[in-house]
């Protein structure tokens, strides 16, 4: 039975604000109004002002139309989810404001309306005037509204003006007239607020002794790839994966690595295939449509047993879909998208920091099992930035160094023998003195084409079974959260994957405070299915719930198909990351219904 929950509206109002929960400021405007730029500056300045902060950008895929929103969260603690109910909504356009009957405005909810066209608050908004800060046209007209707003919200949230101005100086270091006018506008906004308003939140102490870094999901993948020894990257531009190529094209050459912008996704993964065979750890990255184009080569890599990492930064599909929006819809294509029968390793990071670690594990798995590894990230991570302590970006596991030379590598080398060791030898031209060919044709242990039925069975079985031990070999890919939980006493078990984990983690933590007993499993190993972990999870409760950002409950289907379990699937597919506050409501409702029915 598949339950489905629906967002009440695109913004929701939280009724309280404590520094234990992040304070969320959501800025909404038409694309091109400059709010992504000021949100990024505000987010970075918040970090240097002592906050933990995160930024989630929801960008339209159209060139210059549609609505852009940026959610900046500030907190005294690490922020587990980049989205949630809004505490302060900032609007540039009053037509955007739809206070429905099912939304009750609480006293501490704030709304800021910057209107470059209106002189007074529209009559239909009067009843909420106590919650609304209206910045009218006569104040905004001489200035850039976005930068004036940046100054205003910097004052309202104790974000250091000096930090903001320093970041602006760095961003516009070319030193043109624009810089001076921007600085004036930000100063005006800050001064206006300080003369007429009180800050919205209490001042907090600096949160960390450690150096905080700003990083987004795609950058974390790049950092992980570099630390895993990746020295060749090839891709074709596609949202939301493009910035991986952008970042690596600047950073990989510092490590003597190569970035190659290919003519299409097929060429990108083909180049990765050639580079990896030549002895260089390699990765490609794409999103839904491009990932589909790569499927033939992924099957080839499986058959030829060439290590490679394929990152799919998932977006809302199918086809072109909503290219810049979140969705976790490529799980089944990642697992089953190939032709013929092959065992694919599919991993999915659970947070922005985990994007770094899981990328390293992906490279290790590729090397150990000599196969392609698919890394499923998401637009939610790609468009989210957060402050992290720099020390978190150090490998949690030893990096496997490719073995290219061995005493056994000679003209009689049996690359595809079932007796090979755990870490395979992968000879490379110019390094290993042997004659060696890879092929997508079924082949014998020496890699020569073979159509013998016995050999085909042997090779297919060997290729499928070689990664059967991955759940044991990489046990750190199975993340448990069993706080306040004991066997057989949990109200329910929950499992989540990928970019849905931050929201589930937040909702679970909040429900525990209300007394719920919950066993949570957050696997980064998606396929082969971590069967031992799910068996253990059922010891806590037979009510297993799997929330996920797709329509069809793909992970639930996979679990049902592989393990015969019947999870309750909670699905949401609206192009946005799961809202933990709404998820909590839905989970409570679901569990209470179960209790009544039981």
């Amino acid at each position, binding site marked *: 039975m598949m339950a489905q929950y629906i967002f009440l509206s695109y913004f929701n109002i939280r009724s309280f604000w404590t520094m234990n929960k992040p304070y969320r400021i959501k800025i909404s405007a038409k694309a091109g109004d400059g709010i992504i730029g000021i949100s990024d500056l505000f987010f970075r300045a918040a970090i240097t002002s002592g906050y933990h902060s995160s930024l989630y950008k929801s960008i339209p895929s159209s060139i210059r139309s549609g609505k852009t929103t940026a959610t900046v969260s500030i907190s005294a603690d690490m922020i587990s989810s980049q989205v949630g109910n809004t505490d302060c909504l900032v609007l540039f356009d009053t037509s955007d404001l739809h206070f429905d009957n099912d939304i009750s405005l609480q006293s501490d909810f704030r709304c800021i309306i910057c209107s470059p066209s209106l002189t007074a608050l529209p009559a239909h908004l009067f009843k909420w005037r106590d919650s609304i800060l209206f910045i009218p046209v006569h104040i905004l007209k001489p200035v850039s509204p976005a930068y004036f707003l940046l100054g205003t919200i910097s004052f309202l949230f104790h974000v250091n003006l000096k930090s903001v101005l320093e970041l602006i100086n760095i961003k516009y270091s070319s030193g043109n007239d624009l810089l001076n006018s921007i600085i004036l506008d930000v100063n005006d906004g800050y001064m206006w607020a300080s003369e007429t308003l009180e800050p919205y939140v209490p001042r907090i102490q600096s949160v960390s002794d450690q150096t905080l870094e700003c990083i987004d999901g795609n950058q974390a993948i790049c950092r992980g790839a570099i630390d895993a020894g990746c020295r060749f990257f*090839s891709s074709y531009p596609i949202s939301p994966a493009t910035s991986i190529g952008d970042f690596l094209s600047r950073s990989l050459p510092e490590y003597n690595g190569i970035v*190659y912008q290919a003519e299409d996704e097929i060429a990108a993964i083909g*180049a990765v295939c*050639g*580079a990896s065979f030549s002895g260089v750890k390699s990765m490609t990255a794409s999103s839904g449509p491009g990932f589909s184009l790569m499927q033939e080569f992924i099957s080839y890599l499986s058959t030829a047993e060439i290590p490679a990492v394929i990152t799919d930064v998932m977006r809302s599909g199918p086809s072109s879909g909503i290219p810049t929006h979140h969705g976790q819809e490529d799980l089944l294509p990642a697992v089953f998208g190939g032709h013929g029968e092959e065992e694919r390793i599919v991993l999915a990071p659970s947070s922005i920091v985990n994007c770094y670690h899981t990328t390293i594990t992906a490279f290790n798995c590729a090397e150990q099992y000599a196969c392609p590894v698919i890394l499923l990230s998401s637009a939610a991570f790609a468009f989210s930035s957060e402050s992290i302590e720099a020390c978190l970006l150090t490998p949690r596991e030893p990096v496997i160094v490719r073995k290219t030379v061995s005493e056994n590598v000679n003209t009689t080398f049996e690359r595809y023998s079932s007796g090979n060791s755990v870490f395979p030898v992968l000879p490379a031209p110019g390094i290993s003195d042997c004659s060696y*060919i*890879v092929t997508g044709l079924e082949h014998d242990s020496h890699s020569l084409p073979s159509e013998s039925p016995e050999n085909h069975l042997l090779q297919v079985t060997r290729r499928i079974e070689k990664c059967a031990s991955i759940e044991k070999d990489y046990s750190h890919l199975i993340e448990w959260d069993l706080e306040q939980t004991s066997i057989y006493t949990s109200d329910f078990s929950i499992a989540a994957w990928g970019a849905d984990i931050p929201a589930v983690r937040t909702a679970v933590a909040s429900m525990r405070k209300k007394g719920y007993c919950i066993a949570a499993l957050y696997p980064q190993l998606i396929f082969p299915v971590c069967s031992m972990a799910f068996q253990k999870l059922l010891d806590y409760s037979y009510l297993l719930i799997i929330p996920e950002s797709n329509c069809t409950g793909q992970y639930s289907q996979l679990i049902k198909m592989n393990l015969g379990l019947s999870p309750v699937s909670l699905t949401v597919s609206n192009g946005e990351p799961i809202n933990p506050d709404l998820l909590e409501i839905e989970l409570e409702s679901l569990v209470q219904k179960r209790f009544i029915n039981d």
Partner: protein
Amino acid sequence: MTEPQDFLNGNSSSWCKGCLFNSTLSSLVRTLADCNVSPSGVNIISGIGCSSRLPFFMNSYGMHTLHGRAIPVACGARLARPDIPVIVTAGDGDLFSIGLTHFVHAANKNINITVLCMDNRMFAMTKNQSSPTSECGHMGSMTPGGKYENALNVIELAIVSGATFVAQTRAEDEDHMTDMFTAAFLHRGFSFVHIFSPCLTFGKLSYERDCSKQIIDINKAADRDLSDRRSALEYASTSFNNESEEITVGIFLKRSLPVFEYR
């Protein structure tokens, strides 16, 4: 010093008896020996089709990849390891039907790989379907009324795509083929050699027609500047003319331009 036989692994070829691709294999190993390459220091990359079986008969590193995708794999191999020479052995369907995009872009980027087109003017492995280089009227199994369009002029295509070395040869002439392969292999940049290799199983008529044609070696017929792209295009315009009673062979173009991987 290496000998041609050092590059042969002793596996008997799976091509049809008398197939001209055997000569291409023979010329290729002669080239590698002449250039004193080590068998473990060269990467032969192919796609899918009759010609693409060539790496299986060689004692070297090799990749038998996907239909049409030999060139992107070769680009990746070359960029990741610029110290290892890469040779693509592919057919006309591989290079100019399914894989055309890759050919154009690799040539335009001037990536330092050598592409040998073993052109039998059809899809022979699937038993005679028309390919981009099949002549107009070619009776393929999927074109019973005869192929509608003219053969793609791949020499012109290579030149306008930006290839910096373009040559044509015949599989019947091993010595000339070896000379062209050697010149292409030693060229710095994207080198392309088109080899007339009519299929003797399904393309006997085409082969017999070729046999009656006069062979013109453009490098002997005229004293010309090989780096002159305009002149190369003029010669190339006749290289695929079905009505011509001549087959033009030799180096059409040889230009020195910056190589992608050392840019």
